């Protein structure tokens, strides 16, 4: 057998602009249905942030034929699982069902795309605003180091830039949102010509096309879909922030601007971050955690953002007896080494081997296959990247890693340091 599994798929477009990707795979009697809307927090206007994420909640509050909170009950009752997520560049909605429930899944997604506004009310808006506020408290405010994400994005991307704010948005903006604001956002973006539907798993192509046509075909497109324009903005200027917070250990976070997801430079950067911090054999782990025992944990990664540029970020948590400045110096030394010398053949070979296993693992999950097909179609109109991406990583050489590290880590960065609050600060 071929050890790099290839995903077989076909691509179609309905008359209303909905793009459809079908990937039959008979390994198990399950079907993954995955819908990407090309709307994320980067599309939100200043003063109206958090809307894309708010819809992640609205989409479970009912539509014309589905009662409030019934969506989840219907999917579970049919023997399925589901979820939805919101990101800077997009929002995705997905469910995995026994394959004989394919039509139920398509119907649920079509009903909310076509008729969500039927179920939207002031009560619903108020209620879901409260849920989102609780979610923000739980996931960001009431969690050690929980504010770093917002702080780092805001520091690396200037005000006015679409990545300046995170998907959770501003609670003030949500409070100020009217029902009409929210409905207008839905009518603009949650339309067939702004979506990609992927169906992967135990299905035949023809019945999926027929059912998708039947349920989604009648939904009107938005003839005036706004075109997202990539921002231009000034280079990052180094900045540094000290945050006394309710944290057990000191930690330093850093963020750099980097090339966008989809470029060969981004592929090389991902290989570089694998060598730098991807697991127990990586440079930062071997030196800081194991050899010198100055760090409790380390991380370094690049976010897959597509609008012109992205962010490469990392952190080091200092051990209780170690000063955070010490671990920051060590981090700097290791970043500088990535820009000065090429990585060794052995490091590159290990990174390639781990990336290959990780890609194999991802593609053994039907929901992940579907999600990747939706992603590559939404971002690049190239679902075939699902089979090409591994080859792109394996083609990255040591010079390419050094070159991208030089351009990224040689530039300015944002540095955010968390230190435990003193008792006086905590009482204030």
């Amino acid at each position, binding site marked *: 057998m071929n050890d790099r599994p290839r995903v077989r798929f076909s691509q179609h477009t309905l008359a209303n602009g909905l793009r459809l990707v079908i990937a039959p795979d008979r390994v198990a009697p399950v079907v993954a249905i995955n819908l990407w809307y090309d709307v994320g927090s980067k599309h939100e206007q200043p003063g109206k942030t958090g809307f894309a994420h708010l819809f992640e909640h609205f989409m479970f509050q009912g539509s014309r034929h589905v009662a409030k909170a019934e969506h989840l*009950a219907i999917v579970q009752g049919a023997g399925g699982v589901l979820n939805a997520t919101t990101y800077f560049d997009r929002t995705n909605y997905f469910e995995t069902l026994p*394959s004989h429930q394919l039509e139920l899944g398509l119907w649920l997604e079509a009903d909310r795309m076509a008729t969500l506004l039927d179920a939207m009310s002031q009560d619903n808006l108020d209620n879901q605003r409260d849920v989102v506020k609780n979610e923000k*408290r739980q996931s960001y405010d009431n969690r050690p180091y929980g504010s770093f994400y917002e702080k780092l994005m805001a520091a690396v991307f200037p005000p006015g830039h679409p990545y300046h704010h995170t998907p959770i948005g501003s609670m003030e903006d949500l409070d100020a949102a009217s029902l009409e604001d929210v409905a207008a956002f839905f009518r603009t973006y949650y339309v067939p010509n702004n979506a990609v539907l992927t169906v992967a798993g135990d299905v035949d192509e023809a019945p999926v096309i027929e059912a998708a046509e039947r349920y989604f075909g009648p*939904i009107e497109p938005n003839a005036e879909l706004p075109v997202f324009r990539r921002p231009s903005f000034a280079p990052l200027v180094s900045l540094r922030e000290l945050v006394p917070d309710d944290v057990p250990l000191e930690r330093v976070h850093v963020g750099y601007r980097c090339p966008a997801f989809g470029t060969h430079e981004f592929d090389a950067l991902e290989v570089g971050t694998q060598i730098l911090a991807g697991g127990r*054999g990586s440079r930062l782990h071997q030196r800081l955690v194991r050899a010198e025992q100055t760090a409790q944990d380390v991380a370094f990664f690049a976010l897959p953002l597509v609008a012109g540029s992205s962010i490469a970020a990392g952190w080091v948590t200092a051990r209780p007896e170690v000063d955070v400045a010490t671990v920051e110096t060590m981090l700097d030394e290791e970043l500088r080494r990535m820009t000065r010398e090429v990585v060794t053949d*052995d490091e590159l070979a290990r990174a390639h081997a781990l990336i290959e*296993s990780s890609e194999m*693992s991802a593609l*053994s999950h039907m929901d992940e296959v579907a999600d990747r097909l939706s992603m590559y179609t939404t971002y690049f109109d190239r679902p075939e990247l699902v089979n090409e991406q591994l080859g792109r990583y394996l083609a990255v050489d040591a010079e390419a890693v050094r070159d991208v590290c030089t351009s990224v880590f040689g530039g300015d960065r944002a540095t955010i340091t968390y230190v435990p609050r003193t008792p006086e600060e905590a009482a204030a």
Partner: protein
Amino acid sequence: MNDRLTVLDQRPQPGEPRHYDFPDFERTRLGNGLTLVRAHVPGRPLLQAQLLVRGDAGGGATSEEPQQAGVTVLAARAMSEGTAVRDAVAFVEASERLGAEMGAAAGWDSLALHLEVPRTHLAQAMALFAEMALQPSFPAREVERLRDERINDLRQVMADPRRRAEKAFSSVIYAAGAPYSRPAGGVEETVAPLDRDIVAARHRGLLRPEACTLLVCGDLAGLPLDDIVADSFGAWASDTASRAAALAPDRRAEGRRVVLVDRPGAPQSEIRIGHVGTPRRIDDFHALSVTNALLGGLFNSRLNRLLREERGYTYGVSSGFEMRRAAGPFAVRCAVESDVTAPAIADIMAELARVREASVEPDELDAARDYLVGVFPLRFETSAQVADALAGLIVLELPDVELDRYRPSIAAVSVDDVRAAAEAHIHPDAASIVVVGDVARFEAALRAADYAAVEVVHDDGFEPDAEV
């Protein structure tokens, strides 16, 4: 209006369900007594191997000496930190060169070593895996680092309300000194004295070929698996280590308790309600699974519908039986705003009573059965998931047909079966209550409710009986 949208007026009916079988597996034995189980899963080139010390051989934390509680978990974590052949760094790098992930983990019932690797590298990876299993060197420096990390982690438990509640709950429902009353990873007093010699001795005592099963799952087509396994594990000889004594880990505490752990100013109460549950090997396992799904397993379960959807007390509430070789805990878990702590507990108690006292509705029974039957194939997409399922059979000593009979057995559960399972396994009158939260805001209400004498614990103080 768009008339063509009337197609949405009709909710679609399901098609004909497709057949699903759990992958076939085959059992053989090597000359030295090691059992080999293989499951061929076509289209899954990333393989998973596990070496298990079987539950009947006392492989997990249950069989360790009480004064060394936590030694099995520490031994497992330290196994990939170097071998007789190479040090920790060289071992990690050798594994990475093969694109492999290796490690070990211990629970109450078993010690399990695991290997994940692309099939093209299986032979080399299996040799390295055997090196980790049979010749770990347990360097003092690495063992001490992992021991200190465990102690740091135990201290962090006290700061995390959710983990604090779990710790208190186990110590309340099980008798003092029973293994299940503490975490499998041990407590500070038993972990602190552990060293590389104690860890190495525990490893020697557990790993004997005749007590172990090697599982290999994934796309095995064309691989010389027998040769690969014989080359790596064939020369493994049994030593005469004594078999670990089986203890009774699940002795229950006398009577129910209400324990409130004070966190002044906490915005939420972490609630745990329940009692000692049941071992995994029971005749009414499937009826009990359905019962729990409709009580607190599904989004639309009785508990979640009431506490989340109707009352708005919580973001979510769940119930569950943790089934081990012996009787693990049954618990209802949720976090609620402080001021509704007492009414939320009253609601939970009422639901625990109702599921025993009245028959369930046919539609809630259908939803629970359809959910469990439907998601079954979703649980076995990868080689690792298939291996985990087989490991469960081996550790719990379940029959080989257990996975094949799961779906028909769930589908056959009746209204009466649910009622009987609830009566046999859910006992609100015996349920203890643990709350971690701002005690001043609900203590009086819980005293008035009179489930049992209310005990208040202040973590920072020196309460004589504060050991919960």
